[in-house]
């Protein structure tokens, strides 16, 4: 089932790539239909998932690949991978459905999107280190072409910067992965085995280096300050759906990898350096929020809030891994909060970037000061943005709060001072989002924007689909948290 979720989009991509004479609408409808398959499969997986299960991974599908090297095709989920894979499927269907200028190459555009969905789902479902790495790298390729070919402004340069930056990161990660692999006995890339073996436990400096390699590679993708500067240009010049996927799915690869690789496979080493990671996370939280408030460009502002929000996630992960035993309840909160933050940020920021796309299509302008008073012309757009903005600033009743509250409570038990500092981020994000709403939608309407089109049905449907989950998670978080808790409990108990 999970295999089908990964490869149906790939088949769709191939069909689009080799097909001839597809019209714009045909290609679009076909792509939407294809993305509906993984979404349905994820729902089915969710229903089959046993929240009381004690196995490390569930719904596992395995096939031998290169047995002599310990490489296998292994996919499966735990309580952290499942929500992320489900969000991936949701963000993709919304992004594919979002109307955009495909520059007369609809086949190629949708083919790349479907290819990217394949590798994104593959990454979250992979239970083999090599497979994970392959998907990690391929995601760069897909995103590179989407930004470079369908972006605007200095799209090529932005795409190249994105590619080089994250590729450099992924090379350091490859080195670390190989070192980790070499320490297993017998040699294997099987994640479950490595997690059980904890191969580098008690290895001192060597383990530290491997951890550094992994964290740097994943930290670039997350991104953490100071290796975040590829993010703003990539976002600003990318087409809106690519931005939504970049923020909603690709960034999570960094933090998901952080939980899956260094955290789970090197508990002891991770615990030793968790404090450093927490400090970096808090710097990202505050720096990201403050720089975001300093931006006059709509899309850059939202891009920097990603740095802030992913900082919360990393803080949660660091806090959860800060002890080998003790404070289980608080650390369970931290890891659950980090996971919900990934899900919530995927939906919220995904929606915000799609909204940016609507602005670009209508006004070819990202300057906040150029807009104003649009609430009268575009009430639906205003409503969607208000919901997304309040969710992003952590208003209770919406998904962001569920994440941030748990991260704060969990982190405070191990890093009280850092958690207290991180709280200030909540204040700055409130200020920056209220200012954003005020500049776009309130006040006087400049004459040039009279007749600003409200959301088209396709746009409204895509946004409503994502924001509905933001509200559901905010009001009834239990259904998500129960799934996460099944993995969280394993992650925070003594190895």
């Amino acid at each position: 089932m999970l295999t089908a979720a990964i490869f149906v989009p790939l088949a769709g991509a191939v069909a689009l790539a080799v097909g001839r004479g597809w019209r714009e609408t045909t290609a679009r409808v076909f792509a939407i239909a294809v993305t509906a398959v993984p979404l349905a499969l994820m729902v089915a997986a969710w229903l089959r998932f046993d929240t009381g299960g004690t196995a490390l991974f569930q719904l596992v599908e395995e096939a031998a690949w290169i047995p002599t090297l310990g490489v296998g095709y292994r996919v499966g989920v735990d309580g952290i991978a499942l929500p992320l894979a489900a969000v991936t499927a949701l963000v993709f269907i919304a992004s594919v459905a979002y109307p955009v200028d495909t520059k007369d190459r609809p086949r190629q555009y949708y083919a790349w999107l479907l290819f990217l969905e394949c590798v994104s789902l593959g990454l979250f479902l992979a239970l083999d280190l090599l497979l994970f790495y392959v998907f990690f790298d391929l995601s760069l390729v897909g995103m590179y072409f989407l930004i470079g070919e369908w972006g605007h402004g200095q799209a090529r340069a932005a795409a190249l910067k994105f590619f080089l930056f994250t590729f450099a990161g992924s090379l350091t990660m490859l080195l670390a992965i190989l070192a980790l692999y070499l320490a297993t006995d017998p040699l294997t890339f099987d994640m479950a085995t490595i997690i059980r073996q904890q191969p580098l436990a008690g290895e001192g400096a060597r383990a530290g280096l491997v951890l550094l390699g992994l964290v740097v590679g994943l930290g670039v993708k997350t991104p953490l300050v100071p290796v975040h500067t590829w993010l703003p240009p990539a976002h600003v010049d990318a087409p809106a759906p690519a931005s939504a996927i970049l923020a909603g799915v690709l960034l999570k690869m960094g933090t998901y990898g952080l939980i899956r690789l260094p955290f789970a496979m090197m508990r002891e080493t991770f615990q030793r350096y968790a404090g450093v990671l927490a400090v970096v996370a808090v710097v990202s939280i505050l720096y990201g929020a403050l720089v975001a408030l300093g931006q006059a460009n709509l899309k850059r502002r939202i891009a920097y809030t990603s740095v802030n929000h992913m900082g919360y996630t990393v803080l949660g992960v660091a806090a959860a891994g800060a002890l080998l035993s003790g404070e289980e309840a608080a650390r369970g909160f931290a890891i659950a909060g980090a996971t919900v933050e990934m899900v919530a940020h995927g939906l919220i920021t995904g929606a915000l970037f799609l909204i940016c796309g609507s602005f670009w299509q209508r006004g070819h302008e990202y300057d906040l000061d150029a807009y104003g008073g649009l609430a009268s012309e575009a009430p639906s757009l205003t409503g969607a943005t208000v919901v997304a903005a309040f969710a992003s600033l952590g208003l209770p009743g919406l998904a962001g709060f569920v994440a941030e509250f748990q991260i704060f409570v969990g982190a405070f038990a191990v890093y009280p001072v850092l958690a207290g500092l991180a709280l200030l981020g909540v204040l700055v994000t409130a200020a920056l989002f209220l200012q954003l709403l005020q500049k776009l939608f309130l006040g006087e309407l400049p004459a040039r924007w009279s007749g600003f089109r409200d959301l088209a049905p396709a746009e409204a449907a895509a946004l409503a689909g994502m924001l509905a989950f933001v509200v559901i998670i905010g009001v009834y978080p239990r259904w998500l948290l129960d799934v996460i808790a099944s993995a969280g409990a394993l992650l925070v108990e003594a190895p």
Partner: protein
Amino acid sequence: MLWALPLTPLAAGLAIWRTRPPRRERLTLGTAGALALLVTAGIAAWAAWTHPGAGYGWAPGVTLLLGVDDVAGVVALLVPLVAAPIVVYAAAHERRRGLARLVGLLVVFVGAMELLVVAEDLLTLLIGWELVGAVSWGLIAHEWRQADRPRAAAHAFNTTRFGDLGLFLAAMSAFAGAGSLGYADLGGLDGPLLHVTVGGVVLAAAAKSAQVPFSPWLFSAMGGPTPVSALLHAATMVAAGAYILARLHSFLDLVSWFAPVVVGLGLATALAGGVVACLQPHAKKLLAASTSAHYGLMFVAVGAGSTAAGIAHLVTHAAFKSLLFLAAGVAITAGGGELLGRMRLGSRLPVVAALTAVGSLALAGVPPLSGAWTKEVVLAAAGEYAPWLGMLVVAAGGLSAFYAARFQLLAYGPMPGDARDHGPTRGAVEPWALGVLALAVAGLGALWLPGGHELASHLLGEELPTGATWELVASLALVGAGVYAAVNADRGERLATLGLSPRSAGVADWLGLPVLARAAVVGPTLGLCAALARFDDRVVDAGVRGAAGLGGVVSAGLARADDRVVDAGVRGTARLASAVSRLLSTAGELGFDGLVRGLAGGIAATARDSRRLQTGMTHHYYVLVACGLVALVAATAIWR
């Protein structure tokens, strides 16, 4: 079942917002709003009577708890009862554009407040607390087409959210210390975490109740329509701070500094707010400063140890302050502006003037009105804490009497000389809304009757303090002096010009606190943000670009030599790696073999990928791949 208390107004409010009544819009909206609130009041009455509890599994190990004690029951009932006439007034009085949103959000506001009131753990409290703030943003920014309104709303929200951080902090440290967020488990805290938790709650309460130095946000909140101000000051939002101190008093009082800090905050606000109100030339801002001052008195009462006195004053204050705000709204519409000096509507609106007088006299503390009774109770509580505190509360009462009389005389005093032509006076409904509230203010005056003291003590679940006779005498003397001073100043035509000189205008604008906040907090923060944004673009990214540029120079050199050389290098390295792997595999080093073969495969794949990326800058990748390879080979060589 108790969930119905917050959820009924929340759901009803959202529904009202979405309705577009085809005709008789004012009647429909007013009726729907009032009905929703009366139902809520019914549920609240039931809750106050039976003290039920409820829970909701929010997360594994976290249950949202609701519960009602005596204090919560009284406030839960108060909120919808005060809100009902306000909503009717809003439906009748406010501009038609956006009316459904206004009425709907006012009802939602009540729902959020009810959640906060019946919360029995810190998370539920925080949820209600933040929702109240968010709804207040929507209400203050109601007239969003005027650019200054959303700005004012953001100021109010940001200030109170700073206080909300205190509540976040309290929840965090309570969980770390007690392993639970429930009120019932807070007593288990000790050590630094106890102090952090108490400090967080006090910070949140001070910000919400507009105590110094947070008071100026209430001036910004005046950007909202009058019914918003009335509700926000009387029963929701601002009331939350004083309420939570009373609700959690037995826990908060565990730390020795709680009483002096809260008494100090309250007293400073009561006196400073009184001075500001005496000088403030705007009708609504005068009332806003007075609100801060009276919540200050409640803080004094709770800090001094009598939660019952604090809540009693909260109840009567809700009645007379909402009445006065609605009266101010009528005066602003009829007088065509907010300046007190241009109103004097007594002759034109005699009924409204008379109803307003009931509220003003209660605010002044004149018996037998209810405000006076509860103020004397607060005074008694303060006097029991320390005689000097009692004296200062008496002084605050004198200020209150002066500005109450000033408000009444300027807004609804008789017009001297010719009757100027003013804006329209609207509708017949407003006096009824005012009348209901005036009746409540006067009716609560029954507390002066024998047995009132016992009844109030019984309802609030705590014996109210009885003050010394000299306190009552001193207090009434100062009230009289305050009223007399106002009347006297009015006769000398000095009352209207008060606060217009530059120096007193500074005082009237919250003693310059807003200016200070802009200069010391907002300005530097925004400056820092702009500087960091530039820093991020120029310095952080420059480091990256520098590295990339270096790579570019190197690769350009290589490219000049020959693109193929690099390419060959890549292929050569791959071949080298394969060769090494073959060599090692014959030696039987299976693992190493696998690694290198894997590497070779990876390299070949990467090389293929890179070749696909014919962007004209492919040499960059080759350089990177080559660098990576060298590193790889070196690392593997060192490893074994």
